[in-house]
């Protein structure tokens, strides 16, 4: 699904990722953990193609394609979805209209027929239940006046509708209470399947209680420094990131 090799990337000339290598297979759920400033969000944004985030060397292959060569909208249409850490507000643009436009541009790209208003509404209603969003939500402007939790749930709702092949969650758990956390995790679990891969980026282990990863990676100073199974997350929670930093210091001695 996704193959990242020796990736160097940064923002405004500042190098943040320093030789990151990661392989995500189809149907796998990977968690990327790491202290603040380790490059977690940079990774998410480079993969999604946010302007200003520039890859200087290395390769990213997604389903056999050179991902870095594609503009952001092409990546999205190819099935890459980024649940944002800070979803923006778009005043005056109807939430449901926005999502319909998005879905149909993805479907068109993938050679599927575009959905008409009725078909789309049916799909949207179904997926809304998943994240426990009220229908009144559909007619509000995109993220405008949404609470932090509502914004995050809206991201997961969009993800459920767009049905991406690779979903990247950039600190979706930050600022969520336990109930919201559970809802978000359920939404992701509903997506995770043989055909879908998920990359969960998080600072804390708590989301991983509800959303069980196949692999856990620790990111520090722009590189994956440790990989393991779900037990690695628990170990990290107990020992803290100093443990990793300590190990790194030992290794470099």
């Amino acid at each position, binding site marked *: 699904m996704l193959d990242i090799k020796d990736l160097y990337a940064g923002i405004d000339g500042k190098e943040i990722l320093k030789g990151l290598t990661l392989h995500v297979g189809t149907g796998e759920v990977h968690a990327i953990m790491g202290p603040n400033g380790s490059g977690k969000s940079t990774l998410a944004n480079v993969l*999604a*193609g*946010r*302007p*200003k985030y520039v890859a200087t060397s290395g390769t990213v292959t997604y389903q056999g394609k050179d991902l870095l060569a594609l*503009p*952001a*909208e092409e*990546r*999205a*249409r190819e099935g890459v*979805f*980024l649940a*944002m850490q*800070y*979803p*923006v507000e*778009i*005043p*005056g*643009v*109807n939430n449901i*209209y*926005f*999502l319909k*436009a*998005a*879905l149909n*541009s*993805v479907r068109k*790209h993938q050679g599927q027929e575009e959905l008409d*208003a009725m078909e789309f509404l049916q799909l949207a209603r179904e997926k809304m239940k998943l994240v426990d969003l009220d229908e009144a939500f559909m007619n509000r*402007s995109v993220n405008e006046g949404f609470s932090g939790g509502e914004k995050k749930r809206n991201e997961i709702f*969009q993800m459920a509708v*767009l049905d991406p092949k690779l979903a990247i969650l950039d600190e979706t758990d930050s600022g969520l209470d336990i109930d919201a956390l559970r809802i978000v995790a359920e939404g992701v679990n509903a997506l995770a399947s043989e055909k879908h891969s998920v990359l969960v980026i998080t600072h804390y282990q708590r989301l991983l209680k509800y959303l069980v990863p196949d692999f856990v990676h620790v990111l520090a100073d722009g590189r994956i420094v440790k990989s393991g199974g779900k037990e690695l997350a628990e170990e990290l929670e107990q020992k803290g990131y100093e443990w990793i930093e300590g190990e790194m210091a030992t290794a470099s001695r």
Partner: protein
Amino acid sequence: MSSTTIEQIASQEYKYGFITDIEADQAPPGLNEDIIRLISAKKNEPEWMLAFRLKAFRHWLTMKEPTWANIKYGPIDYQATSYYSAPKQKKKLNSLDEVDPELRATFAKLGISLEEQKRLSNVAVDAVFDSVSVATTFRTELAKVGVIFCSFSDAVQNHPDLVKKYLGSVVPYTDNFFATLNSAVFTDGSFCYIPKGVRCPMELSTYFRINSANTGQFERTLIVADEGATVSYLEGCTAPMRDENQLHAAVVELVALDNASIKYSTVQNWYPGDKEGRGGIYNFVTKRGKAFKNAKLSWTQVETGSAITWKYPSCILQGDNSIGEFYSVALTNHHQQADTGTKMIHLGKNTRSTIVSKGISAGRGQQTYRGEVKIMKSAEGARNYSQCDSLLLGDKCGAHTFPYIEVRNSTAKMEHEASTSKIGEDQLFYCQQRGISAEDAVSMIVNGFCREVFKELPMEFAVEATKLLGVSLEGSVG
């Protein structure tokens, strides 16, 4: 990547730049009493009309061009402009079929073919081509309910009493430099009269089009809704490409008598000049309405054209319980400058006014909102709500807001909100990350921004308005 797309979208050149080759009957350049007499004679006007023009001209000679607006332009040589231009016509026309085919083709290019208008949209069109009306439709049907909808020249000939009574009653000939100039030299325009208690059965529409090079166009429009009458009027304009600046100074007067209602919608897309700021229309317009008891005036405008726009559609809320509304979208791109807004003058008791202004600046466009709300002593219980929002695309454009508020009655309630935002990289990226192209994203964001105003437009105009913003709504409304 996304920023280049904004620039690409913002740098699309004017699509309606073509010149129709029709022989024009044109006055020599210059402005003096002889020219005014010539205009009046060409139009076969009665003595009182000439007297009005001369009075205005003599007053104009004593006036100075205003300089307070936040716009910059070179000096206008009023003596270098020709003040009269009429397409040469052999005879008076009885039906559309007799209209010069080249003229018809011009309208067709603009997508406003008269027969389409007639057949499909049930809109009566009084097409003003340069300064003379060449075709008027639906007049007979309107006449059945007593509605008069004709060119201003015809009104002077056929309804002199109405014209005499209301001309200058809202915008006096002494009002301001440009309005006074218009009073002296106006060539044509539209006249509407809706009799007592009549709800006008269709939306009235006029397309103005400036065609002859170096011909200032001076429209004069007068709409009178008698007691209890209702009318919706649409004004739309596009002009062909020109190298030299063209002066345009129109005057629109609305009179809403007791319990009457007038809705006036404008889509203005005159030539804005090229990317370097050459050419383009200078648009100095005076639009004002007077509302009597329980009457309602509503201005809705979408201003995307002209090199310079100087325009403040206003309401004098004279009668008790009268209502004034102003909904505006103005877009400036390249080197366009707009100083626009409204005035709401509250005189009557319990008068209410609403102002919603949306300014979009792109390229090097400069935009100023200038609004004045005056609550006079007599206006017990008056209320005003003002909202002006600015949206910036890119970092070389500007938005300025000058709200003036004057309250002389302590029972007044005023609300004012203002905001400035930028189409951020973040918003664009958000849309793109969901699979929406940058161009569609900009269009979506801009239309979302304008939504409160667009929903005030009549349906067919709303469609045109979104087209004019160079974007398409594709059913996002509703």
